[in-house]
């Protein structure tokens, strides 16, 4: 009897690691490292959303707000507090977690569409602060971010890599850590509690799950994931603008989550990979880009409503029989 859930965890990690290592062999130019890095950065945020949406069954149309907090922490803290940009990642994560903890309790009392609007409003508030407080944030045109000094450090150690290449590996490692944590959670007692309230809050309550607290935990954890991804984005681009905190980015992240398969870490990465590379692929279509993007979103969700990875897995599993 195969009861231990250990093996799927290791298999998912192995698959991700293989993907990370093998992909560069097919890169025609170092530009692809940047796409890879963006996929892993988005992937991290989406893994966070898998914990909130896939495990705990909550919805958020405002998570880009936390991307904004993570990103602007790395832009502002080195300048005003004099701490290193890398340290600022942790500061951003702490601030995001704290904010999520403060607003999460009242917001998460809401359900369904009401929760959607509350999170939407919350995200928009963060966006407005970032966009309006121009004396701090540079306003809608954005601001530059200090270099991490990592590249110089590598160079002094004798490694000469392009920025894109370096961030490919950094983002990959951070995402793998994020995936490991999310996979740990999935089969753990806490993960079961979260997943139970996904299916029935009432039943979760009667087996002793403090529904409000667990929802809040999922919200805080996912906020931290998203914040770290925002920090990575700021440090890699060395430039940041409020768009990363905007509603459209929230929708983009949620779409990645659901497209790949909201309940699986592997699906999250696939969803991120598709939606991140799609605009690059679709450039050949010029004016038809948005039409095709909209079509793909609709078709996948209509015909594979559990998301790509679970739906395809089901189809492939059925075939041999």
């Amino acid at each position, binding site marked *: *009897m195969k009861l231990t859930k250990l093996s799927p965890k290791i298999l998912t990690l192995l698959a991700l690691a293989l993907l990370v290592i093998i992909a560069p062999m097919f890169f025609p130019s170092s530009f692809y490292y940047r796409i890879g890095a963006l996929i892993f950065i988005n992937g991290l945020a989406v893994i966070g959303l898998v914990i909130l949406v896939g495990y705990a069954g909550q919805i958020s149309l405002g998570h880009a707000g936390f991307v904004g907090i993570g990103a602007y922490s790395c832009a502002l803290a080195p300048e005003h507090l004099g701490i290193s940009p890398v340290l600022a990642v942790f500061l951003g994560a702490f601030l995001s977690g704290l904010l999520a903890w403060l607003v999460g309790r009242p917001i998460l009392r809401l359900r369904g569409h009401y929760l959607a609007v509350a999170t939407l409003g919350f995200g928009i508030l963060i966006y407005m602060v970032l966009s309006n407080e121009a004396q701090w944030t540079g306003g809608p045109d954005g601001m530059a971010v200090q270099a991490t000094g990592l590249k110089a450090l590598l160079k002094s150690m004798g490694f000469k890599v392009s920025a894109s290449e370096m961030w490919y590996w950094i983002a990959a490692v951070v995402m793998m850590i994020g995936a490991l944590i999310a996979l740990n959670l999935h089969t753990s007692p806490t993960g079961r509690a979260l997943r139970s309230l996904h299916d029935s809050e009432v039943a979760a309550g009667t087996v002793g799950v*403090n529904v409000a607290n667990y929802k809040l935990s999922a919200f805080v*954890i996912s906020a931290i994931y998203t914040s770290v991804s925002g920090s990575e984005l700021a440090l890699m681009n060395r430039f940041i603008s409020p768009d990363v905190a905007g509603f459209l980015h929230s929708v983009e992240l949620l779409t990645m989550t659901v497209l790949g398969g909201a309940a699986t870490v592997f699906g999250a990465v696939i969803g991120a990979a598709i939606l991140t590379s799609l605009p690059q692929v679709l450039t050949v279509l010029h004016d038809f880009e948005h039409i095709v993007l909209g079509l793909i979103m609709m078709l996948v969700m209509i015909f594979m409503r559990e998301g790509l990875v679970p739906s395809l897995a089901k189809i492939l599993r059925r075939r041999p029989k």
Partner: protein
Amino acid sequence: MTLLTVEDLSIEFGGLKAVDGVNFNVEAGKIVSVIGPNGAGKTTLFNMLSGLYTPSRGRVTLAGKDVTNQPPYKLARLGMSRTFQNLQIFLQMSVLENVMAGCHLTEGRHIVTDLLGLPASGRRTRQSMKDALGLLERIGLQSHATDEASGLSYGALKRLEIARALAVRPQLLLLDEPAAGCNAVETEEIDHLIAEIAAEGVAILLVEHDMKLVMKISDHVIVLDQGMKITEGLPTEVAQNPKVIEAYLGVKATEEVHNALG
């Protein structure tokens, strides 16, 4: 020993008195059934007892503690768990995980340990798995442990809910129509299961339409009609009570009862 005391419990929905001034007690290790025609307020009563609805009046005492208005998760900690008339299975989990989810209280809340996947986390999961497998064996579903819960038959899901509720290690178990939709064999199994649980000292409060089952296993029966308790007593007493026969059982059902007691 009186485990559960219900005093003057009432609730209104937009002026309609769904439950009105209900009183009763449940003793440890006894099986108490709540019966009554459709719409009598049985499930509403359960929902108030288990903290889902807020009563407009009255008091619920569990093991000497006032638990009126307590949220469900606190009631679980105090030893109350339940099953549902409209199944509330965790459909995205395996059969085994459904029961393991019931072990939540013994597992405790250790989020950081779980996130980091520390050995203690695995230990707690393995302990729950052991307990859950034991319970699955008890309800005869051990061979389905790794199946998706959504694939089980209705009767099996009913038993799965009981196993999950037992995983909470309750002192008081609320069963809302555990035999509804089950065939004769399944009903028989559930009948045995309930008797066994009660024999271990767990108090059971039961809502059930299957009169045969009620009359056979109940130590005490409470009859509700239009939100009010019209009588209570031993199954035989209740079955003879003209008020009950008039308000609820009707002529045909009376015959059934007599046959059942036969």
